[in-house]
């Protein structure tokens, strides 16, 4: 593992990996294996995220934390343009994308699907976001195959996991005594060949890695027929049958008002969501107003500003904003990008301060639909 970190650094990558900070597993600059959260698992539920030590836990038995690849490809704050006033005219300084490429160790299958979804927004439409493209082209992904799922995970419902089968350069499966590494790209193979101490293992290692993934997948599939243990968090799943039409046919359902009674419109769900892409551009100028930076920051459909028109705010209530978020995520996203906007990572459930659970909201609408 240290050999992999070193090989990536040697090749010019800034290496990012999971580590414990402020009581959560987050992404940060990774220098050494020692920083990885060995022996740490995360217990997640609606509005609950707690780290725990477990004797048999490996380096990657935590699941997903508040961070995702989004913060690296579509950063929370980014300068889009810089302008200088010269001789009565504005000169736009060319955008520089000269930061070293990133290698991120740790994204799960759901995260890779989320990245593919953001690719459709920023790369695959009529217009391309140049900053996103530069960072995306440089990105090296060392994915991790989950062998554990949190109660909030429902990738099996969204068909986005748990096993990653494409979209990575390398994929790690952590076994009890070693890592099995799958090569997903030509440059993945090149890096792997440069890893000090790596050697091809016996075919049985591959089988063990595959078994581990299938076992997790089976246990997630069984959620539809098994009850959670008493006192344990509910194991999430989402019935996606006709989901697009279910929500769009229920735009006046009373459930929107009910969820709004609990929703704080804090926007946490949209910040931790690995696919949410709303942003605003603001002007930052110096005192002379002769040098201006245009800064793009994440924003959220839970704010009034999001739907502001000079004639008034379009979505005036929390009910209207929650409805916008959920119908976009699960319904209209399909019209826009040919896929759901949800990858079943469960972050919005975990990081909601009042524990609103979209799987529960959908189920409630489904049960009481006309």
């Amino acid at each position, binding site marked *: 593992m240290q050999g992999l970190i070193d090989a990536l650094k040697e090749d010019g990558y800034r290496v990012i990996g999971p580590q414990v900070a402020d009581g959560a597993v987050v992404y940060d600059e990774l220098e050494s294996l020692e920083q990885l959260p060995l022996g740490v698992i995360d217990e997640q539920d609606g509005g609950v995220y707690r780290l725990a030590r477990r004797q048999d836990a490996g380096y990657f038995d935590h699941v997903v934390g508040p961070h995702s690849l989004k913060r690296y490809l579509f950063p929370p704050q980014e300068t889009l343009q810089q302008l200088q006033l010269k001789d009565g005219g504005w000169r736009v300084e060319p955008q520089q994308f000269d930061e070293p490429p990133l290698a991120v160790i740790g994204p799960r299958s759901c995260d890779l699907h989320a990245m593919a979804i953001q690719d459709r*927004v920023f790369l695959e439409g*009529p*217009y391309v976001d*140049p900053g996103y493209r530069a960072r995306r082209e440089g990105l090296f992904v060392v994915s991790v195959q989950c062998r554990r799922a949190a109660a909030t995970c429902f990738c099996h419902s969204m068909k986005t996991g748990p096993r990653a089968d494409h979209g990575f350069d390398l994929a790690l499966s952590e076994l009890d005594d070693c890592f099995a590494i799958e090569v997903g790209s030509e440059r993945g193979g090149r890096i792997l060949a440069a890893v000090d101490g790596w050697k091809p293992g016996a075919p049985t290692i591959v089988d063990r890695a595959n078994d581990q993934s299938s076992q997790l997948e089976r246990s997630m599939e069984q959620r539809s027929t098994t009850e959670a243990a008493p006192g344990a968090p509910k194991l999430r799943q989402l019935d996606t049958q006709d989901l697009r039409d279910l929500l*769009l046919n229920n735009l006046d359902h009373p459930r929107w008002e009910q969820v709004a009674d609990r929703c704080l419109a804090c926007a946490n769900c949209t910040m931790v969501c690995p696919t949410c892409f*709303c942003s*605003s551009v603001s002007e930052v100028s110096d005192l002379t107003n002769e040098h201006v930076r245009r800064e793009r920051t994440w924003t959220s*459909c839970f704010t009034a500003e999001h739907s502001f028109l000079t004639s008034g705010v379009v*979505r005036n209530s929390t009910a209207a904003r929650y409805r*916008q978020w959920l119908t976009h995520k699960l319904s209209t996203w399909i019209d826009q990008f040919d896929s759901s906007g949800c990858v079943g990572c469960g972050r919005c459930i975990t990081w909601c301060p009042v524990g609103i659970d979209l799987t529960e909201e959908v189920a409630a609408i489904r049960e009481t639909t006309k």
Partner: protein
Amino acid sequence: MKPNIQVAATVDAANPWATHAVRIRAIEQEVSDVASYELEFEDSAVAERFHFVPGQFNMLYLPGIGESAISISSDPDVPQRLLHTVRAVGSVTRALARKQIGDQLLLRGPFGSAWPVDLFRGQDIVIAAGGLGLAPVRPVIHYIMNRRGEFGKVWLLYGARSPDDLLYTSQYDCWRETDIETHITVDLGDNQWKGNIGVVPSLFERLQLDASLTRVLTCGPEIMMRFVIAECLAQKIDPKHIFVSMERNMNCALGFCGHCQLGPAFVCKDGPVFTYEQMEPYLNVEDF
């Protein structure tokens, strides 16, 4: 809701944030807080490439203040004479109102969908506009005037709050002379006003429409458009033949920022012009 979007020749699809410098060539005060700005590209090569279709908008940018989506209100056959009619109402448009002839702005565009007037040849057209909503349909009026013989009957129904709020008043005679039957109305008259009083949808009852032949274009406050649509449906006009120009918070014009979503549509790139058939499921949903 995914039309084949044509990227304009003056927009770089690989760097759509890039702007072009323009200078204000002329300013015409239309009504008290509304002025039309004629813009000229600094780079003649860009001016050469610049074309737009009726219904499209530009992003006008004042560095340090911000960007605003403004519809183009001039003749699409004369793209060199580029006009935007703007109400000073937000921070960007108020700053624009303080600009003078010769001042520089930055511009990205054009963006957005078109009133598909080229498909209306041989058909009757009703244009129903309210307030500043006349600006985005004026390119259509020009387009029709430039090839008037190719269209059937053409009606313009236009209304504003008061006589002082009516836009482009000096041009009504010219429109009438090119056989565009122009009906003007105001919500509230004054001592001098001798014309109609009432809202735009009420003008429909005067028209003898052939429902199968009629195409309707409407732009204005959403409430007005809803009642225009109701009139059209009462006259048995096909929802596919009713075109609406929607307004939402357009920040980027590229479908990146998410603000202008209206159901499945990004108003900036899928719109602003839609058929009523596309908008029907969402137009009457409160706060959507």
